[in-house]
C-alpha cells in the first residue's frame, strides 16, 4: 500500500513538473508583438561603422543612421542628409544635412561629424574602406552643408552613402576601440549591453527621443545561429520572428509549414570567376575561345536542378535583373554544348584540353557542386583539380598569394551597376590580375562620367562584351527565402540578401 502511494506521488510530481514546464513555454520564450526577433548566420565583427559589412547592416541600422536611406526598391531617400546634388563635373557632391539631430552625449550631428566619419571610414582600414577611395576630402561649408570632393566621378557614391560608409557615429568616440562593442550613433535603437552576449545575441531597445519616425518595434534582438535547422524550428515555434533561409532543404521545410510566411528573392549568383584572363598562370585561359568553351561545358540547368532543387534562374551575366546593365538575352547566351566547347578548345589550340587547379571552400562549393563542375569540364577535356582550403587560409591563398587562376563564389547583384563594375570589372579585388581591354576601358569611362540614368547603353554594351569575352562563368541566380513566423511582414531589399531593419512591420 505504501509502495503504491509512493508511485502515485511520483506520477503526480512528474505531472506537476510537466505542467510547469509546458505552462512556461508559451509565455516565457515567445517574443511579444513589440519585439522583433531576427535570426541570422552572419556574425558581425564589430559595431564600429569603419568595420561595417553589408551582410551585418541591420545591426548598424539599429544604432546608427546613414546619410542617405536606401528604400526597399533601391531608390535613395533623405535620412541624415535631406538633399544632395552633383556639380557638372560629377566630382563635387553637395549634401544638405538635418539640423535637429543629436548624438547620445548631446553633441550635434553636423558637417564636421560628416567629415570626421567619411574621412575616418576611408582611412581606418576597414573591409569596405575602398568604397571611399574616390573621396578626396569633405569640405564643411557650415553646420548643415558639406561638399564631397571626389578624385574622379563615382556613380555609386550615393549607394555607398546609404551603405556602410554612410553610417554616422559620434566623432567624440573616435580614438579608441570603444565603438566596436559600445556603438554611439543617432539611430532608432540603442544597444542593451546587459542583455547582449557578443557572439550570440545582440539586443537593441528603442531610444526615447529618436529624431525620425519610430520603427514599429520597441525592441529588436538579432541572434546568430550556425545552422538553419535551428532557425527554422525557431520560426515554427515563434521563438524567431524572421530570418533569411538559404539552403534548399530548409527552404522546403519552411514552405511546407502553413504558419510560416515566405517571400522568395532571386539575389546572389553563384559562378566561376576567372582571374587569369591574360593566361599568366594557365596560358589556355588567356584565349577567349577557351573561356567560352568553359561556359559551353557547364550544364547550368542540371546544376540548378541538382544543387538548388531547381529554385533559381540560370544566367551567363554578372549583372542582376534590377541593374540597368541587365540584358535578359544574356541569361542564356551560352547553351550547354560540350561538342561546341571541344571545337572552341581545338580552335584555340587546345584540342586535348588542359589542366588547372582551383581553390575549393566547403562553405561555397559543396561536394556535389565540385563533382558536377569537374565532370562537366572533364567531359570536354579540361582536367580540373580542386585544392580544398580551410576557412582560415582560403582568402590569403587566393587574394594575397594569388595562387589560383579563378574561384567559385557567390556574388551579390546590386541594382547599382557601378558597384558590380568596381567589384568585378575594374582592376582590384576580383580582377586580381588587372585584365582590361579597349571596350572595357571605353565603356567604363562612359558609365563613370554619365549623369544618372544616362549610362544605360554603355552599361549594356559592357555587359554584352564581358559575356562575349567570357570573363566569367556564372551558373545561376539563387533563390533565397525570407521567412516570417507569420507575425511580421518582410519587404526584401533590392540587391541585398539581408533586408534593411526598416523593412519589417507587424503583420496585419
Amino acid at each position: 500500500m505504501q509502495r503504491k502511494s509512493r508511485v502515485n506521488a511520483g506520477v503526480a510530481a512528474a505531472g506537476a513538473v510537466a505542467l510547469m514546464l509546458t505552462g512556461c513555454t508559451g509565455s516565457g520564450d515567445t517574443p511579444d508583438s513589440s519585439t522583433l526577433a531576427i535570426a541570422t548566420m552572419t556574425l558581425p565583427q564589430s559595431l564600429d561603422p569603419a568595420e561595417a559589412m553589408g551582410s551585418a547592416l541591420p545591426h548598424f541600422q539599429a544604432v546608427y543612421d546613414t546619410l542617405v536611406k536606401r528604400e526597399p526598391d533601391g531608390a535613395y531617400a533623405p535620412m541624415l542628409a535631406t538633399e544632395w546634388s552633383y556639380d557638372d563635373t560629377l566630382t563635387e557632391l553637395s549634401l544638405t544635412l538635418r539640423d535637429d539631430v543629436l548624438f547620445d552625449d548631446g553633441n550635434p550631428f553636423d558637417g564636421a561629424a560628416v567629415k570626421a566619419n567619411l574621412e575616418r571610414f576611408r582611412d581606418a582600414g576597414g573591409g569596405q574602406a575602398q568604397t571611399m577611395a574616390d573621396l578626396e576630402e569633405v569640405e564643411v561649408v557650415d553646420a548643415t552643408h558639406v561638399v564631397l570632393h571626389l578624385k574622379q566621378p563615382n556613380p555609386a557614391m550615393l549607394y555607398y552613402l546609404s551603405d556602410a560608409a554612410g553610417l554616422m557615429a559620434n566623432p567624440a568616440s573616435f580614438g579608441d576601440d570603444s565603438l566596436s562593442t559600445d556603438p554611439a550613433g543617432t539611430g532608432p535603437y540603442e544597444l542593451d549591453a546587459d542583455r547582449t552576449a557578443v557572439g550570440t545575441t545582440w539586443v537593441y531597445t528603442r531610444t526615447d527621443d529618436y529624431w525620425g519616425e519610430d520603427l514599429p518595434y520597441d525592441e529588436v534582438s538579432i541572434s546568430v545561429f550556425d545552422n538553419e535547422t535551428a532557425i527554422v524550428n525557431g520560426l515554427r515555434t515563434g521563438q524567431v520572428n524572421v530570418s533569411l533561409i538559404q539552403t534548399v532543404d530548409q527552404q522546403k521545410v519552411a514552405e511546407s509549414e502553413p504558419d510560416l510566411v515566405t517571400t522568395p528573392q532571386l539575389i546572389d549568383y553563384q559562378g566561376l570567376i576567372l582571374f587569369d584572363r591574360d593566361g599568366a598562370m594557365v596560358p589556355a585561359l588567356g584565349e577567349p575561345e577557351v573561356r567560352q568553351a568553359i561556359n559551353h561545358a557547364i550544364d547550368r540547368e542540371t546544376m540548378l536542378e541538382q544543387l538548388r532543387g531547381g529554385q533559381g534562374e540560370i544566367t551567363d551575366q554578372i549583372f542582376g535583373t534590377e541593374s540597368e546593365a541587365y540584358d535578359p538575352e544574356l541569361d542564356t547566351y551560352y547553351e550547354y554544348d560540350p561538342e561546341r566547347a571541344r571545337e572552341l578548345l581545338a580552335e584555340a589550340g587546345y584540342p586535348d584540353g588542359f589542366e588547372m587547379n582551383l581553390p575549393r571552400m566547403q562553405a561555397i562549393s559543396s561536394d556535389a557542386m565540385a563533382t558536377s563542375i569537374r565532370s562537366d569540364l572533364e567531359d570536354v577535356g579540361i582536367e580540373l583539380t580542386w585544392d580544398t582550403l580551410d576557412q582560415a587560409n582560403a582568402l590569403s591563398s587566393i587574394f594575397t598569394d594569388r595562387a589560383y587562376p579563378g574561384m567559385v563564389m557567390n556574388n551579390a547583384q546590386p541594382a547599382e551597376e557601378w558597384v558590380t563594375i568596381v567589384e568585378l570589372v575594374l582592376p582590384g579585388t576580383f580582377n586580381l590580375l588587372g585584365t582590361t581591354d579597349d571596350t572595357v576601358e571605353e565603356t567604363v569611362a562612359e558609365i563613370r562620367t554619365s549623369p544618372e540614368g544616362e549610362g544605360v547603353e554603355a552599361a549594356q554594351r559592357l555587359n554584352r562584351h564581358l559575356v562575349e569575352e567570357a570573363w566569367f562563368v556564372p551558373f545561376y541566380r539563387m533563390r533565397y527565402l525570407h521567412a516570417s513566423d507569420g507575425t511580421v511582414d518582410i519587404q526584401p531589399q533590392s540587391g541585398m540578401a539581408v533586408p534593411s531593419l526598416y523593412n519589417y512591420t507587424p503583420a496585419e
Partner: protein
Amino acid sequence: MTSFILRRAASGLLLLLVISALSYVLLSIPNADVGRQLLGPHAAQELVDARNSALGLDQPVAVRYLDWLSSALRGDLGTSWFTNADVAQAMGNRLPVTLSLMVGVTVVTAVASFVLGAWAGVRRGAVDRAVQVIGVVGYALPGFLVMLVIVLVFGVQLRWFPAIGYVPLSESFSGWLSTVTLPILSLSVAAIAGVSQQVRSSIIEVMGRDYVRTLRARGLPASRVVFRHVLRNAATPALTVLGMQFVGLLGGAVLVEQIFGLPGIGAMTVQYTTRGDVPVIMGLVMMTVVVVIVINLFVDILVGWLNPKARTS
C-alpha cells in the same frame, strides 16, 4: 587528503602551462592571414599588413605566447580577433549553457543508470534482459536522430518545450528548466544506455563475491546488502565513466547545441576554431583543461570516499 589535493593542484598548474604553450605553438603553425580574413578580399594589402601588425602577428611566436601568458596570468585572456568580444566574458556567457547540460545529463544519467543497472543486476531474469535490450537500442540509435526526433516531437509538434534557445537560470528557473530539458533528454539516452550496462556488470560481479554471500548468509536484508555494500563497491567504475562523460560533454555537446540553437561552449569551439581565432581558442583550451583537472580530482575524491582502498593507490 589535503596533501593529495595540493599535489594534484600543483601538477594541474604545470599541465596548464605545458598545454598552453603547446596549444599556442600548434595554433600558430597554420600561419593564417588573420588580417585578410578580418578585412575581406577587398582590402588593400597594406591595410591587411597593418591589421596583422596591430594584432601583433608580425612578432615571433615565442614573443606572442609570452605576451598572452603574462596577460592571462593577470586574468586578462584578451579579446576575440573576429568579434572584439572579451574572451573571458564570452566564455562566461556560454559556460552556464554547457554546464547546465553537463550537470543535467550527469545527474539524469547517474540516477537512471544506477536504478536500471541495479535493478537488472540484482533481479536478473526478464528485467535484466529488458534493461540490456534498452541499453543496446539506446546506444545504437544515432545521437543526431534522437535529437531531431525529440525536438520535432516535443518542441515543434507538441510544443511542450521550446524548440530552440536558452533562458539563463538567473533570469527564470522555469524558463531555464524548459530550455534545457530536451537537450538533456537527448544527450542522456546514449549516456544512460552506456552507464547502466556498466553498473549492471559491476553489480553482478560484486554480487558474486564471497563477502556478499557471507553477508546474505548472516541474514542481512537484501536491500541493506545491495545499498550498503554492493552499490558502494560497484560504483567505482561507473563513476569513472560518468566523470569521463562529463568532461566529454564540454566539447562533445556541439551537435545538441546546434540542433537546439543553444549558445554553448561546443558551438563556440567550432565557430572560432574554423576561423583560427587564437585568443578565443586559447581561452577555451585553458577552460577545458581546468574543468578536466577539477572533475578528475572530484571523481578521485569521490571514489576514495566510497572505497578507502582506492585512496592509497
